[in-house]
């Protein structure tokens, strides 16, 4: 078990698998972002019975094991495996992201909206220039956290045959009949990526704090 061998395996996994890991994570996250913001809007600004229904749907989505979600999309909608993975991960993500946005909007909307309206901005402008920018900035740490979760969950796509980092590491392990190095390598890769993201997230969080926003939302 030499260092060279180790490093070689790491690089191999990175080269063969990172692209799909990236595609799955970013794809799923974007889907979640798009739907999540939409849902958050509906819940905060329309509310009522729609909000309640959405709450139930969210609860359901969050009770389903990720593997099952992928299976349902893959076998149910009969799409190819990457698309199914992106959609499956995206669905799970949007249920969490919608709550992140909802929480932040509810926390700042009321008072900021009042202030904006009182200087003469109409609802749409208040929204676009005052509330939206703040929501975006404030939600970044939570979203980065959500992204790391998605990144880790992307490994589940192994179950439907997507060749992402984890799958590559297992293929290598099976070929070499040796599990320690490939698993350790892929673990380190995930660690590096996640750690980098959370480091950036902390920096941003501190910056947000210094802008005058208080305790973490």
């Amino acid at each position, binding site marked *: 078990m030499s260092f060279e061998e180790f490093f070689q395996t790491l690089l191999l996994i990175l080269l063969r698998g990172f692209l799909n890991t990236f595609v799955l994570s970013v794809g799923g996250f974007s889907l979640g972002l798009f739907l999540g913001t939409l849902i958050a809007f509906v819940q905060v600004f329309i509310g009522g019975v729609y909000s309640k229904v959405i709450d139930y749907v969210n*609860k*359901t989505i969050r009770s389903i*094991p*990720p593997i099952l979600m992928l*299976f349902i999309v893959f*076998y*149910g909608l009969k799409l190819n495996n990457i698309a199914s993975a992106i959609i499956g991960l995206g669905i799970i993500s949007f249920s969490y992201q919608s709550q992140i946005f909802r929480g932040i909007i509810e926390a700042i909307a009321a008072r900021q909206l009042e202030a904006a309206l009182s200087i003469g901005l109409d609802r749409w402008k208040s929204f676009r220039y005052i509330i939206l920018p703040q929501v975006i900035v404030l939600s970044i740490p939570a979203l980065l956290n959500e992204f790391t979760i998605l990144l880790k969950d992307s490994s589940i796509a192994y179950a439907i045959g997507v060749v992402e980092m984890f799958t590559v590491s297992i293929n290598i392990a099976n070929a070499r009949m040796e599990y320690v190095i490939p698993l350790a390598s892929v673990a380190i890769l995930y660690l590096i990526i*996640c750690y980098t993201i959370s480091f950036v997230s902390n920096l941003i969080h501190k910056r947000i704090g210094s802008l005058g926003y208080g305790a973490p939302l």
Partner: protein
Amino acid sequence: MISELLDIFSKYGIDLVLAFILTLELTFLSFSIGFVGGIIIAVLRSSIAKPFRSLLTLFIEIVRGTPMIVQLFFVYYTLPVLGIKLDSFTASLIALGLNSAAYQSEYLRTAINSIPREQWEAAYSLGLSSFSTVINVVIPQALRIAIPSLTNELIYLLKFSSIAYFVALPELIYTAKWIASKTFAYMQIYIVIALFYTAVSMILSEIVTRIEKKVSIPGLTIKVS
């Protein structure tokens, strides 16, 4: 479609029930391991010497930074190198348990940090040692504050007990897939199982809420997690 489903359940009902029991076992046992482990880690981290503390922190960071499936495969496939051969259930239990211990120790740590310094001061003023203070004053309060996070953890474990699918443990997902591949009724079975997980989650949530009410102490506010 309903008749088709009923057909399937009459044929494979027993397998599903056994699978469900396995899933529950895995969930509760790993939660318990995580709970005990979490307390031990949290207590150790606030009392022992620096080098050991850093080791524990390293462990937690590794668990938090890698996918659960990687952790499971590590336990299942690499421990044999050291001579320990594990069956799927034990391996899953260990992997889930360690994972849960890491997360639960963090939830506890947050809860402990939210307890005002004055409680510590009052305990010290009576002559309690730091260990005694942690056991008698801090932990009883921290546990109650941590209940919402712990509930989430339980539900999370219920979901991720499905990870045992990858080491061929006949829990719910594995069994469902097996039945689906035999009957070709993929969608129906998966949707039913999905609804089933939802129902179980809701029941568990409700049970925890009841327990929470029973152990709540007036004045000990539950912080939003």
